[in-house]
C-alpha cells in the first residue's frame, strides 16, 4: 500500500501541484472534492494508474467514491492487482 501511495503521490505532485511541499499532500487529502483533480486531471490519473500498475479501471470507478484520496486510490489499485 505504502509503495502505491508513494508512486501516486509523486505523480499527482509533479503533474497537478508543481512546487507544492510534499508534506502538504496527505493520505486523506481530498483530491477531487478539494479541487486538486478536475475531470481532465482525473482522466489522466486513471490512464497513469492503468499503465503503471497494469490494471483496468472502470468508468464508474473514476469518481469521488473510489478516487478522492491517496488512500482510496491505493485501495482501488490494490484490489485489482
Amino acid at each position, binding site marked *: 500500500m505504502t509503495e502505491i501511495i508513494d508512486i501516486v503521490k509523486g505523480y499527482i505532485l509533479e503533474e497537478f501541484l508543481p512546487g507544492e511541499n510534499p508534506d502538504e499532500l496527505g493520505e486523506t487529502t481530498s483530491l477531487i472534492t*478539494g479541487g486538486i483533480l478536475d475531470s481532465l486531471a482525473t482522466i489522466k490519473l486513471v490512464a497513469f494508474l492503468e499503465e503503471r500498475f497494469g490494471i483496468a479501471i472502470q*468508468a464508474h470507478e473514476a469518481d469521488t467514491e473510489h478516487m478522492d484520496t491517496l488512500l482510496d486510490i491505493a485501495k482501488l489499485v490494490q484490489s485489482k492487482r
Partner: protein
Amino acid sequence: MAATALFSTLEASAARLPDSIAVEEGGSAAAAPGSITYRELVRLSDRVRDRLRRLGVQPGDRVGIHLRKSIDSVAAIFGILKAGAAYVPVDPGAPAGRNAYILADCSVRTALVEERAAGPLRAELERLGAGPPLIELDTVGGGNGLRAALDRADADDPAPPGTSACPRPGDLAYILYTSGSTGKPKGVMLSHENAMSFVNWCSEILAVTASDRCSSHAPFHFDLSILDLYVSLKHGATLVLIGEEIGKEPMGLAGLIARHRLTVWYSAPSILSLLCQYGNLERHDLSALRLVLFAGEVFPVKHLRALQRLLPAPRYFNLYGPTETNVCTYYEIPGRVPDERTEPYPIGTACAHVQTRVVDPDGATLPAGQEGELCVTGAGVMQGYWNLPESTARAFLVDADGLRWYRTGDIVVEMPSGPYAFVGRRDRMVKRRGYRVELGEIESGLYRHPAVREAAVVALADAEAGVRIKAFLACREGARPSLIALKGFCAATLPGYMIPDLFAFADSLPKTSTDKIDYQRLQELP
C-alpha cells in the same frame, strides 16, 4: 396563444404519442435506466403545477430547481412553466453559498431541492435573509423522488387539480445565471418567445422526428439544455439524460451513446475532444448518430478532424451564441476537415429568427472584412439581467429605429464567403469546458481568502485543455497558503470549472501608472 408557451412542446407530443418514451435516464451499463412516457410526464408535471399553486406560486414568480438531472428535474421544469412561473436551475455541484445567492437574488417563491443539499442551502439562504419554503425530495431518479414528495404533501394538504397558465410571449420562462465580472453571478432572463423562436428555428434546420433519440449532456443551468429539452420533446423524440458524473467521463460516455442508440448529440466541444482521445470510440457502434452539434467554445480543428475520422457518418454543426441570445449563428462543417487545415471553422451566418451586424466601438456598422463586435437583435434576444438595470442598459445598443441590439462582446469578422469568423473577446471573459468564466469572478473569490492581499487571474491557451487558468497572488507576510489549501478554498467557494489550474506567488503584483494590475507585465512573471 398556447403554442407560444414553452410547455406546449410537451403537451402537443403527448396528445399525438402518449405512450412513447419521452425521457430516459442514461446511466452506467449496470443500472437499469429509468424512463417515462409522454402521458406520464404530462401527469407528473401537472401535479407539480398544482402543488406549486397550492404553495401560492403565481404567474410571474420564480421557482428554483436544485436537483440532479433526472426525470424528476424534467417534470419539475415543466410543472413550474405550467404554473406560469419562471424556473431557475442551479448547479447542484456548486457551493451552497453561490446557489443560495442565486435563489435569493431572484427571490424565488419556492425551490425543489434534494434532501442531501437542503440543510446547507437553507442555512445559506437564512444568512442572506431569505427563507423560501423548500420542497424536499429524498432523492431523484425515475420521477420517484418527486412522486413521493408530492404524495407526502398531498397527504397533509391535497392540491386541487387546476389548468395550466397562458403565458404571454414576453413572460419569463427561465433565468440562467452566468459568471459575473463583479464577482456575483448574474441572471439572464429569457422569455417563452425567446426560447420558442429558437426551438422553432431548430425544427427547420435539424428536422428532428419521433424516431430520434437526443442527448441531454449539458446540465439544465446551461443554455445548451434548451435545445435538448424542448426540441426533442416538441417532436415526440426520446430525450436521453446524461448525468453530471458520467457526462465528464469519456470512457463511459462512448458506451452510453452506443447503448442508448443516440441519433442526435449536442455538447460543448471539450467533451468531444476527450471522447476522441480517451473514449475508445472504435470499440463501440455509434452508427445511429446522424447529427453532432457543438457550441460554447472554439473546437480545436485537430480534435474535430480526429472525431470525424472515427465517426464519418453524421453531419456536424458549429452553433454559436451567448446565453443572452442562445444560438444566433450556425455553420455546417462542409464534408471532411482537410489534413492541412489549422484554423478553426467559422461561427457561421445568422439564424432565421434573429438579425446580426458587426459594429465598431461607437456602434457604427462595419462592412464585411473588418473586425468588430457582433451584435444581435430579434426574437431570441434576452429580456435583460435580473435586477441589474445598469448592466442591462450597457448590454444593448439601441439603434435609430429603437431596435435593441445585444452586444455579444465577441469580436468577429465577416468573411468574403459570408459567414462570420470568431476573432476573440473584448473583455476578460473566457470559455472553459463550454462554461463562460469571468476572470474577475475568480479574482473576487480569491480575495475572500484571509491571507490574500492581491490577486490577478489570466487565461493561458493550452493545446490539450483549451484554456488553463493561472492565478497570481501576493499574500500577507508569512501567511502564504499551500497550493492544496488554496485549491480547497476555491473548491468551497467557486464552481469547479473556475478553480485555477496554476498558482504563482509574488511579493506584490505589477501595476500600471494608474495603480491598476498590469496584466501585460503579469504574463511575464514566472
